[in-house]
């Protein structure tokens, strides 16, 4: 019996590895059905039997058996970012595990992936600026509007990061972001004549609206993850309501803009 146990992989280690993997996958923007598939593959590759998993964007419950002993654990998480770089690496790691990567190697690689550096703050600010700038042009703004869109996007990014630092809730964060999103174009329109306020707001709003979320709701429903779809849908609604309140607050103070909005 003891000899048999020596050849087996420690179930606790597998549980920790799989749990961390699942948490990271969801945090970096993977689809739920992919997370469930990946974790089943990992656990089965390390010899666990009867693997059952239930994953939500906020919770993973994992359960498997080894030699008739049942192991189960749950992992709480908050998903709010997308990191495609890490997602790819996690996906590769999962594929390697399927091709018989040892658990020591897998743990090491996972720790490396978690430690991957993100883009420096300056570059991410500039990227946000360019997104605002080119979407303003995309929706028919002129170059002067695009430059203001750049500034507006950078400010909105700073506001979002500020709100994140103080762990405000989703609703308040988006109200705040929406407020500055409406305020800046209006102020610049007072200084420079002929600024197209609507184009700037439309351009920069792209940074706050979860585009992939809308598509994912439908994909989750079709994949059978209705709970996930409901959670995501509620989240999108709250973001939308927050932005609407925020922009209304800044625009309601400014009757001129309201008149322009009504004419459209």
């Amino acid at each position, binding site marked *: 019996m003891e000899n048999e146990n020596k050849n087996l992989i420690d179930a606790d280690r597998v549980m920790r590895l799989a749990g961390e993997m699942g948490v990271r996958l969801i945090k970096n923007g993977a689809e739920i059905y992919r997370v469930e598939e990946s974790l089943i593959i990992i656990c089965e590759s390390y010899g666990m039997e009867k693997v059952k998993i239930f994953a939500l964007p906020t919770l993973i419950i994992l359960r498997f058996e080894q030699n008739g002993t049942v192991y189960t654990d749950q992992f709480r998480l908050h998903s709010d970012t997308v990191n495609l770089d890490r997602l790819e690496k996690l996906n590769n790691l999962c594929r390697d595990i399927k091709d018989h990567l040892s658990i020591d190697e897998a743990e090491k690689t996972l720790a490396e992936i978690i430690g991957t550096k993100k883009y420096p703050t300056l570059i991410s600010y500039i990227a946000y600026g360019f997104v605002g700038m080119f979407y303003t042009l995309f929706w028919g703004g002129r170059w002067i509007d695009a430059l203001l869109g750049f500034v507006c996007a950078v400010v909105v990014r700073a506001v979002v990061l500020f709100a994140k630092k103080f762990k405000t809730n989703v609703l308040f964060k988006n109200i705040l972001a929406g407020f500055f999103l409406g305020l800046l174009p209006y102020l610049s329109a007072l200084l420079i004549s002929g600024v197209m306020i609507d184009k700037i707001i*439309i351009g920069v709003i792209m940074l706050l609206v979860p585009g992939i979320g809308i598509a994912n709701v439908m994909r989750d429903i079709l994949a059978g993850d209705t709970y996930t779809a409901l959670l995501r849908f509620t989240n999108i609604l709250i973001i939308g309501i927050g932005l609407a309140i925020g922009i209304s607050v800044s625009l309601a103070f400014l009757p001129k803009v309201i008149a322009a909005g009504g004419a459209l």
Partner: protein
Amino acid sequence: MYYLPCLYAFLACFAFSVVFEEKRVHIMLLSAFTGSAAWFVYLAFGFLGANIKMQTVRYLFAALTVAVLSEIFARFFKTPTTVFLTVGIIPLVPGAGIYYTMANLISGNLHMFSVKGLETVACAGAVAVGCSLVSSFVRITAEFKKNKQSK
């Protein structure tokens, strides 16, 4: 000049892939290409007109383009489909619709609010349906292949 927004969509999607922390340059370029291809398809079907029904159809075609291209690129580079889809879908988010819906609500023009709101929901729905059609088709074919192999 009619297709100039495609260029802007390309540049914006490229910037967006930096926001989403993508590191490999060829993936960034291809996902930006996916986004601009979507908008190209949307514009190319411009002859259909701009009423709500036809808008929805155009968005559906554009979303199908994004989804198909993402699946192809994902197979080719052995990455998750999400990598291309997340960035490529961005030009199809009806940002203008969202804003005008909101602007009409603020100004109290409830008629235009409902028109714009329905239009926005229809477009977003078309995009969602387009993406999920392709992904469920891919999953069905994958299962079909697996069954064949196991037999």
